[in-house]
């Protein structure tokens, strides 16, 4: 996994509440058996005026001129600003894959759905919870200033605005450690293989009906 330390980048808006993962990446693109290539279909139904098909080039598709991510001012954005309950719905990890593949490294919102929030950390994407008021002020500043950039420092757990304001955010220690160092969860867990085996051995005695049945 790629690491996340400091990010300075253009912020772009997804100015609505309850952005669901169907919206982030519609179902037809879930047929891919790869982890990459979802960026061109991020927010497909909002970004384009036609219906997207899997394995289709997006060159030449009609662009929705009213969708903010299509505005030149948000080109190259790496921080996405949104409203409450971002990432609700389906557990599809294709949602963070699509955001990442498009170029986003962080999403800032007043709240996130649990599964999406968790999936972000597995992919070097940092979800940041800030209060409604702060998110609101970030939206206003972003709309007012073209090229508006935010700086995110994970080690200090702060989001900094161009005006010099600094907002602290929470993140679990373990997730932060993995993200800062780009660590693979599986390798870390397997360091505790003995503890897993010991648990398993005990369970095999206590609850043998849990083992060797589906085979």
């Amino acid at each position, binding site marked *: 996994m790629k690491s996340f330390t400091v990010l300075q980048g253009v912020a772009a808006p997804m100015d609505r509440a309850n952005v669901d993962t169907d919206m982030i990446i519609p179902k037809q693109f879930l047929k891919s058996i790869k982890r990459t290539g979802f960026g061109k279909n991020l927010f497909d139904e909002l970004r384009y005026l036609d219906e997207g098909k899997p394995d289709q080039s997006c060159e030449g598709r009609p662009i929705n001129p009213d969708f903010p991510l299509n505005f030149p001012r948000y080109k190259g954005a790496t921080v996405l600003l949104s409203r409450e309950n971002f990432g609700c719905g389906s557990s599809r990890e294709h949602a963070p894959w699509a955001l990442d593949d498009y170029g986003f490294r962080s999403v800032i919102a007043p709240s996130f759905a649990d599964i999406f929030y968790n999936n972000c950390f597995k992919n070097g994407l940092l979800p940041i919870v800030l209060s409604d008021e702060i998110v609101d002020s970030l939206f206003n500043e972003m709309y007012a200033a073209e090229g508006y950039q935010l700086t995110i420092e994970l080690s200090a757990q702060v989001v900094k605005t161009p005006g010099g304001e600094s907002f602290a955010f929470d993140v679990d220690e373990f997730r932060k450690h993995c993200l800062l160092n780009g660590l693979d969860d599986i390798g870390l867990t397997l360091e505790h293989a003995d503890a897993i085996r010991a648990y398993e051995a005990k369970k095999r005695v206590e609850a043998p009906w849990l083992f060797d049945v*589906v085979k």
Partner: protein
Amino acid sequence: MAAKTLYDKLWDAHLVQQRDDGSALIYIDRHIVHEVTSPQAFDGLRLAGRKPWRVDSILATPDHNVPTTQKERAHGVAGIEDPVSLIQVQTLDDNCDEFGIVEFKINDHRQGIVHVVGPETGACLPGMTVVCGDSHTATNGALGALAHGIGTSEVEHVMATQCLVAKKMKNMLIKVDGKLGLGVTPKDVVLAIIAKIGTAGGTGYAMEFGGQVFRDMSMEGRMTVCNMAIEAGARAGMVAVDQTTIDYVNGRTYAPKGDLWDRAVADWRNYVSDDGAHFDAVVELNGAEIKPQVSWGTSPEMVVSVEDKVPDPAQETDPVKREGMLRALQYMGLQANQPITSIHVDRVFIGSCTNSRIEDIRAAAEVVKGRTKASSVKEAIVVPGSGAVKAQAEAEGLDKIFIAAGLEWREPGCSMCLAMNADKLDNGEHCASTSNRNFEGRQGYGGRTHLVSPAMAAAAAIAGHFVDVRTFN
């Protein structure tokens, strides 16, 4: 000893290692796998030279992509007309064969929707931890299990380590007492809960459904309710073990037998919340007040009773919510204050992991029996949740009732719930759907979903618009 909730007990029983920062390693008993969220996980295993930790913990079946017409199903995987879907289903077969995982393949009579197959085969049992790369895994919580959806990276993690890195959630009790009125179903109960607490109301919580309504409810009804915990924001929903649970599990293929059965039952009976256990949040509803529900918007919380009118955004004071309502009305092609019963439907879908079990199929059949689908309804499909449900329904002659009424009887799969196969809405069409999500485009590009119970969907198929099934004669 301190009183514990059902969730506390499930968590404690599966704790392998607690870390200082609150995160923990949790042991996973059952891992259910389908074709959409697993290929990248299998690839990850191969790349790292890893193998599944415990192959016997995994059960796989394709469901999201599989076609539901007999014509396409006749030739198995090779018969799937969509080449991209074909590759995905074939990839699951290849991966399961390579790693020695039990899979109910496309034309196996046990194939079906993961969350229908898990409980009905006894692969998912009370007291277990169950995960699957699908947010509706909470369905299995009806058994008194800790079950929730995970992402693909976690699918790979569970395969490689038999554990999940997790942080303990908070406890929420949804208490519904009283007695449900005639024609009011588990689907209406869960939609009413979502309407009350919102789609983020349960975020961060494990949700236990308690109270008389759930004690009186069948196992399949409890599955419908737990299935939609995620639509209320909660990863996991669950119901305490009681005699209904034990009776449901008894005799299922993978359930313990003989002496082991007695030992298992003694263990399972502990999986209830103790008297006086602490819940961080309690929400109460009166079951007697719940009416048949119909969603009008593009989020499962945008739901009202069939007696109501489409809400008016002008009455909403929160600007973000008002904006969402306006956008939803525009997308749905509806007017504020229009009666729900004035909404005409173009298609009807009876199926999905929420409502495709035998009791759902029976409820729909009872409504359409001896009647005919409205000619204005282009298509009404009934998609059983599994091969076992299909066989049972056919043994009861339910398929013939649907066909005689002008509905279609299909092969098992997820179908039009998420329209990854050929079953989908056309742009602008309204659908009475027994599925779980009414997001924009969910059932097809530009499609307009109305979430309802099987009986309400069946009644809409006959009437051509929403009607109150309680007075529909």
